[in-house]
């Protein structure tokens, strides 16, 4: 066997000693480093500004856009409150009211709550962990543009009176039978945004795991990073079931495959399961990051480290897991066996424990600290009060008999607004006040902030506290009006008045946010006296992130590490310069954050925007049932992504090593499990496999729920083709793996040959998979339909796999991929591990399982 080629290992002293850190940096060195970094990180100006990809730019756009969608969704709520102010109002007709409540819920969840987490994290996470940027800035930019296009498309449908109107959960058969394009707008528009959400989740997980500064071990991470890890993981397991559900739903809407149609063996309950397996964790996906903001503010207010760091980690991880065992508590009235309801009732009570622990940790920190009451803390206090009230009604609702009584009444509306306003909106506003000096380099007004708080806080309680009563008196949700003699009129009027008070509070907040603050002058760098790295930021602004990447040995470095900011500013730490004018950051190991290599980071580009536009076309055209332009758009989107990867990622470096500062020399290229790209692939495929597992779950769900699955005398997939598909795809996997190994040992031609074999085998495998089910009619019954759906899923993934294999082959021929610089091939091989597994599972479900079941 030929010797493997390896990149050189890091060399030099590590960790740095106090003597090394106390050596001053010569003035001219400092100036040279600053000039180089400024050149590398220059934000484009003029109209080119919009090609920026830096997290401080994209994060601000993202946050403002999500906030804008929230205001729009809030206006919809105001319109609904006007309609409900008096019995028999005719401000909105029933149809428009339906569109408004559907879009209010959908927009608040998909266009505000989840994107807001991503936006804030993209903006702040690199600063929390003292890194220069997110590991994949262009991916953030792509995700942002997808979000913007998708959001405008979905919200815009209201202007054409074409909005979805079946409720934010789109239950079939109401939504499958809807004759307008509303459900398609919802399904395709929001799927498009979900893809962007998953992209952001992948990036954030990798950012928290691999881009921490040297020395920041897992026991020293800012708590926010722990929450990011947990929430990112939850997104990976919660969103894919919804994407799989959307996939089935849209196949039914567009091609009449009867997944949710009981007359042909389908079952609307499958949608409810898939939707709520997403929908309940989703509540915690919006709650945890907001409480994470509180976890950053509370220690600053108390002027001491958080009490019970490990307890908060327990609470975040524990809530993340338990929240997946709650979904059926949204389905207590669907006629499931009561013994099953019992499990979900029990798990719903259990999740209170970890959720409560973190609140107690906050309170304990405030009790033992020297509290300096500030505006952010006021909002956090409001959040805790409201959230606890919402949590208590949640405990009530977890009890099945009570749940039956108030199901689909205004009691639920009150409960969910208490949890989400208290658990998400208030902490996020607290975060805006707290972090505003960091990202805008200005301070918000103390006086306006208090006005805004008391308006929103009192308005909120005036609106939603009476709704508990309205619900107990029997008023159902989602009715556009109610009769005079119902006795609900006064409570509704009070709620409407409260809604306007909330709106006034938001108007004050918005004014404060956007008013000119030029007269304010330069603000102090760390106005709250915080202990975490983000408040080492530069005032006035510099776009390099951190001047030099610090060595961390405490949880609150600004409090616990002497002279750290001074040394960061002087460029005493790592990567204090950029000799090639190339954007870079340090990638470290997952557990102990030991420096591994220097990762080049992509700079401004239009290509991610272009890719987003084409991806948008691929999702938006099918809404109107026009498919040719959609396919053309999808093809262009793929071309754009390939171009962007080819020109900017995993290029052979100019030299293999780089002086990283403090005598440390680090490699400038890496491949395999050390790299951010490999982790991103692994995490993405974990999410992708969850979606696939949801489809397989669908197959078995039909089998348990329906006596006629598979129907008697049904035609099955053709066993020979199924076996051939499995065989060829496994061959393709093996050939890809072979290519990686022989390439690594320097046999470039053998690797190219193996890739050719892999491509041919994959194409053959995809063809065989198609032939296996080609004769079945997917519109006739759900059994052939689900077999087809599994086949389509597999073939699409094999298609992606073939493009990747071709990309590596082209890279090898063009000299981009060599035996030493083989990151692409490692990542593609990892992708193919998953495809191989999927091929085997699909083949088993298509070819073997039906035989066992009948």
């Amino acid at each position: 066997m030929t010797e493997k080629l390896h990149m050189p290992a890091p060399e030099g002293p590590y960790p740095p000693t106090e003597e090394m850190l106390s050596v001053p940096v010569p003035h001219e060195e400092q100036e040279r480093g600053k000039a180089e970094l400024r050149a590398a990180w220059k934000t484009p100006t003029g109209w080119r500004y919009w090609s920026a990809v830096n997290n401080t730019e994209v994060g601000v756009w993202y946050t403002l856009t999500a906030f804008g969608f929230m205001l729009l969704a809030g206006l919809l709520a105001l319109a609904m409150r006007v309609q409900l102010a008096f019995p028999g109002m005719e401000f909105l007709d029933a149809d428009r009211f339906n569109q408004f409540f559907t879009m209010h819920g959908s927009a608040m969840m998909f266009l505000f709550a989840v994107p807001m987490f991503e936006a804030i994290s993209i903006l702040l996470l690199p600063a929390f962990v003292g890194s220069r940027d997110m590991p994949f800035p262009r991916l953030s930019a792509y995700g942002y543009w997808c979000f913007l296009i998708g959001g405008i498309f979905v919200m815009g449908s209201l202007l054409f009176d074409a909005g979805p109107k079946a409720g934010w959960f789109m239950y079939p058969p109401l939504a499958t039978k809807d004759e307008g394009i509303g459900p398609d707008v919802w399904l395709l528009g929001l799927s498009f945004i979900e893809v962007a959400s998953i992209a952001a989740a992948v990036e954030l997980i990798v950012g928290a795991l691999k881009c921490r500064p040297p020395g920041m071990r897992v026991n020293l991470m800012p708590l926010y990073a722990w929450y990011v890890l947990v929430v990112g993981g939850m997104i990976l397991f919660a969103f894919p079931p919804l994407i799989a559900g959307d996939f089935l739903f849209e196949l039914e809407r567009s091609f009449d495959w009867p997944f949710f149609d009981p007359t042909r063996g389908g079952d609307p309950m499958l949608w409810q399961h898939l939707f709520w397996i997403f929908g309940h964790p989703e509540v915690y996906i919006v709650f945890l990051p907001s409480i994470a903001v509180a976890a950053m503010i509370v220690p600053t207010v108390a002027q001491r480290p958080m009490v019970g760091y490990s307890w908060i980690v327990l609470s975040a991880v524990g809530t993340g897991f338990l929240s997946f065992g709650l979904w059926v508590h949204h389905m207590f009235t669907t006629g499931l066996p009561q013994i099953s309801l019992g499990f979900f009732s029990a798990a719903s009570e259990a999740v209170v424990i970890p959720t409560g622990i973190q609140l107690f940790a906050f309170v304990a920190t405030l009790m033992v600290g020297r509290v300096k009451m500030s505006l952010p803390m006021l909002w956090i206090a409001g959040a805790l009060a409201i959230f606890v009230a919402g949590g208590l009604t949640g405990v009530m609702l977890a009890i099945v008999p009570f749940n039956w009584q108030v199901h689909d009444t205004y009691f639920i509306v009150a409960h969910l607004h208490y949890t989400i306003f208290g658990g998400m909106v208030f902490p996020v506003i607290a975060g805006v006040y707290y972090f505003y000096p960091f990202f805008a380099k200005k301070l918000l007004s103390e006086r306006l902030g208090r006005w805004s708080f008391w308006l929103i806080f009192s308005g909120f309680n005036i609106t939603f506290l009476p709704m508990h009563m309205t619900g107990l008196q029997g008023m159902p949700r989602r009715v556009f009006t109610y009769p005079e003699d119902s006795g609900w009129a006064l409570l509704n009027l009070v709620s409407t008045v409260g809604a306007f008070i909330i709106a006034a509070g938001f108007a004050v907040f918005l004014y404060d946010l956007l008013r000119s603050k030029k007269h304010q002058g330069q603000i102090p760098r760390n106005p709250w006296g915080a202990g975490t790295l983000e408040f080492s930021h530069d005032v006035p602004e510099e776009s390099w992130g951190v001047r030099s990447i610090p060595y961390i040995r405490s949880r609150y470095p600004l409090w616990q590490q002497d002279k750290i900011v001074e040394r960061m500013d002087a460029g005493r730490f790592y990567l204090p310069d950029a000799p090639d004018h190339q954007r870079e950051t340090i990638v470290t190991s997952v557990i102990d954050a030991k420096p591994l290599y220097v990762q080049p980071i992509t700079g401004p580009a239009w290509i991610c925007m272009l890719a987003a536009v084409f991806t948008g076309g691929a999702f938006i055209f099918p809404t109107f049932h026009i498919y040719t332009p959609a396919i053309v758009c999808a093809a262009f989107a793929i071309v754009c992504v390939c171009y962007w990867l080819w020109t900017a990622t995993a290029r052979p470096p100019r030299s293999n090593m780089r002086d990283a500062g403090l005598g440390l020399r680090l490699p400038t290229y890496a491949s395999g499990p050390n790299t951010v790209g490999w982790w991103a692939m692994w995490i993405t495929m974990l999410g992708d496999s969850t979606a696939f597992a949801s489809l397989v779950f669908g197959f078995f769900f039909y089998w348990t729920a329906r006596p006629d699955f598979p129907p008697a005398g049904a035609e099955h997939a053709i066993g020979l083709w199924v076996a051939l598909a499995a065989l060829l795809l496994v061959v393709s996997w093996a050939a890809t793996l072979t290519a990686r190994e022989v390439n690594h040992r320097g046999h470039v031609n053998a690797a190219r040959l193996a890739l050719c074999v892999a491509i041919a085998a994959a194409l053959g495998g995809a063809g065989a998979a198609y032939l296996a089910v080609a004769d079945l009619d997917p519109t006739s019954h759900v059994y052939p339909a689900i077999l087809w759906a599994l086949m389509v899923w597999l073939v699409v993934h094999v298609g992606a796999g073939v493009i990747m294999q071709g990309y590596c082959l082209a890279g090898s021929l063009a000299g981009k991929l060599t035996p030493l610089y083989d990151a692409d091939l490692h990542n593609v091989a990892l992708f193919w591990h998953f495809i191989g597994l999927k091929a085997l599972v699909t083949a088993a479900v298509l070819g073997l399982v039906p035989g066992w079941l009948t």
Partner: protein
Amino acid sequence: MTDINKHEEQKRFRAEATSLWKITFGPLVWAVHFVATYGLTALTCAKGWPLDPLRIGVGVGTVLALAGILWLGWGAWAQWDTLRDREWENDAPTDEDRHQFLGHAAFLLSIISFIGVVYVALPILLFGSCQ
């Protein structure tokens, strides 16, 4: 001055590549127990099978899950090692503190998982029939 390729600290605390996964094992046991219990129950009720085999199956599964969590919790307790050094915060930049912190987190998570498993098993004991 230490070279980046040298290890000064004790061998047993060296970067545990799998240790971050390890803290999730307790909750994972809960998840597997939950899915299996729910799945078997749904199947039993949908197909109209008798409840007693289900009760026995879930009972055995619960005992196994609890035993597994206890075992994980015991390991985590030893890793936390709080009786020896009485150190709660584990916020020093050392391999030892990172090791003990992960033990502490895993220990707390196994307590939560234990409670979760007990909760989820209760309906099987309390319900006489599917309805």
